[in-house]
């Protein structure tokens, strides 16, 4: 199979290029894209990419495969190959450090900006804070985010305003804490999001939903935040 991989080494390359590599795949097996990258790397050590759990839970290996973002470790080649060719590029919209490795700095910055931790100053006593199963269920579909950045880097609004628009992943996490019955900082959290860019740059394009490898729905979470902001304003 022909694999076209994005290559860029800041020490030796003046500009990035696509490298075509012929990879012989084992018969009768549908490899993951990560397996293919590993095969290439066995022959050419200089190819760099991130990987860790290889089962879709750590979020290391978000890449762009034939035009669509996803995790290389749980994306079968057959699912993305078009015209007999696999094209692997780094996640779009972020600076490339080398090959498929992007600088996630601005993505993590937006995550930190929403204060992604529980805020509750009431003493809890010697036991856990109680939470009803119904209240706990409100966190489902939110806390599972693996910070792979597939969503935010597929979002045109985030491409345009990565410094000002929190982006789908950060907003999903913002809502995870807004929705937590144990959190006491709702007002402060909303106040920090209440500007034309942080939330309202979302145009409902829904690329985030279409690419999320965990099946989460950032657009829906953003809708909830909008509702909270709007009812706060009235």
């Amino acid at each position, binding site marked *: 199979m022909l694999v076209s991989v994005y290559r860029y080494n800041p020490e030796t390359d003046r500009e990035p290029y696509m490298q075509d590599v012929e990879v012989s795949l084992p018969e009768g097996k549908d490899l993951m894209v990560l397996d293919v990258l590993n095969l290439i790397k066995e022959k050419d050590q200089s190819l760099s990419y991130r990987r860790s*759990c290889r*089962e879709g839970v*750590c979020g290391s290996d978000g890449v762009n495969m034939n035009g669509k973002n996803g995790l290389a470790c749980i994306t*079968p080649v057959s699912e993305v190959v078009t015209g007999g060719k696999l094209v692997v590029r780094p996640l779009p919209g972020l600076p490339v450090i080398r090959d498929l490795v992007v600088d996630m700095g601005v993505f993590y910055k937006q995550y930190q900006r929403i204060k992604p931790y*529980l805020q509750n100053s009431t003493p*809890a006593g010697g036991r856990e804070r*109680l939470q009803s199963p119904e209240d706990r269920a409100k966190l489902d579909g939110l806390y599972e985010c693996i910070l792979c950045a597939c969503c935010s880097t597929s979002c045109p609004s985030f491409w345009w305003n990565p410094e000002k628009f929190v982006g789908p992943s950060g907003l999903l996490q913002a809502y995870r804490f807004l929705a937590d019955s144990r959190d006491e900082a709702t007002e402060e959290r909303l106040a920090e999001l209440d500007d034309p860019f942080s939330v309202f740059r979302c145009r409902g394009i829904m690329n985030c939903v279409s690419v999320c490898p965990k099946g989460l729905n950032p657009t829906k979470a953003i809708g909830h935040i909008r509702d909270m902001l709007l009812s706060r304003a009235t």
Partner: protein
Amino acid sequence: MTGLRKLSFDAVVIGGGGAGMRASLQMAQSGFKTACLTKVFPTRSHTVSAQGGITCAIASADPNDDWRWHMYDTVKGSDYIGDQDAIEYMCSVGPEAVFELEHMGLPFSRFENGRIYQRPFGGQSKDYGAGGQAARTCAAADRTGHALLHTLYQANLKNNTTFLNEWFAVDLVRNQDGVVVGVIAIEIETGEVVFVESKATVLATGGAGRIYASTTNAHINTGDGIGMALRAGYAVQDIEMWQFHPTGIYGAGTLVTEGCRGEGGYLINKDGERFMERYAPNAKDLAGRDVVARSMMTEILEGRGCGEHGDHVFLKLDHLGKEILHSRLPGITELSKTFAHVDPVNAPIPVVPTCHYMMGGIPTNVNGQAITQVNGKDEIIPGLYACGEAACVSVHGANRLGGNSLLDLVVFGRAAGIFIEEQLQQGIDYRLASEDDVDRAMGRLNSLDSNDNGEDTAELKRELQNCMQNYFGVFRDGEYMKKGRDELNAMRDRVANIAISDKSKAFNTARMEALELQNLFEVAEATAIAADERTESRGAHSRNDFPERDDKNWLCHSMYHPETKKLTKRDVNFKPKTVDTFEPKVRTY
């Protein structure tokens, strides 16, 4: 150390998994200048893959639950070589540590009354084994590790821990007095080598499951901390003790639940024979995990394995029919399609006993202080600490109970943090590292970088992993282990002679993988020697040639000494502080 940049901290924690981040959180909360140095962004650490939960007697499912019952189960599960003072500490302090996680925001599942949900797990009992099955494992659905890891990362952000993300620790730096004063590390993005100096160095580098060809472990689990400790000449404890699961997907290692066999699935060899009928005529495929795993290895070693290399067996499920598979085992159907490229409706799943957890590691006391053994006596290594899977405190002994790994890493990450805090408050004085001290720690990296013609990482790694898989797996035998030791012996020089073709600096993963392989090799060799020398069967260490537990000679820890490559013994602690000793008994379930 010409030109080497230096960063200085009160404490540096190597590893951003659960143990490391619990330790760094503790110290950062007290305002000490704390760095968490991790080769991957923290939430990519392997703690993220833990599913079932964290076992702890928080008395939620059963208001009368008692940490002493949990302690009894853990001692018994360890096959009596877990240290009872450490197990006592873990089980009694556990509830406090778990409640702290909840207060930080960990989204535990809940019971109707709003308390933390707990589920039953293997090896759990009430009333010291007399009161039936307990439900003691606190869970956040089946993503407890993910929830725990993200919560700890978030708490560290809140408390301003300095994260050195995507930094790779190469080797320990020691001063002329033998005090550990930091590490040499590579900032992966730039390739810059930095001396990270610290008053306390905590190894929280996790396991090393990648010494085996088939493992549930992440790519990153390469025993970096163990490698650093062994190269520094420190002993490791009970390193022969590795936990295996019978059914990991061949090639990928992803776990396939025992529930498949519960639903009527069974294992077959290359002749299509349901071989478990020979090994366990009554329970067959539902015999104990160790029995099933051993039987599978026998089939493979005797040439009845499946596939081109005869190195796995099949788990047959197709006779159950599409409806049952889709209604009762949808997750497995999905996993199998994803990772074995096989639809179990039509074809059997290739499986192999799969390395899962390293019970052994760097010996420590309950304060996380690393210990080595000199002339048969314990000695504390000044400046060095360990916690989590990299450490052997030892709460798991020869066999870990499910749900105890997350408790271990939280309780002992915290304990190490608390102890280091106290030390820092009292003041820690040591002589600064000299240029020679730093140069010594640079030796391995320099030799890798200056080698132009040598061995290939990928090829050697494959040989190493196959050797460990074939000779030091679930089922062990002196004769096979001798062969394995010979192969490893022949590999040592080659591992030291790895050459990388790519010597560039920016995000050079080839350099990292070479360094990781050298760590894997240290762990593998220690495992091989300790396994061969422990002439008994206990817990996960199961030998054909010594099938019985031998309490007369081996009711003790093993200590592997890297410089002499010899094994010595170390006493197990049988003196808990507040309860009576649990005396060794025959272990039956």
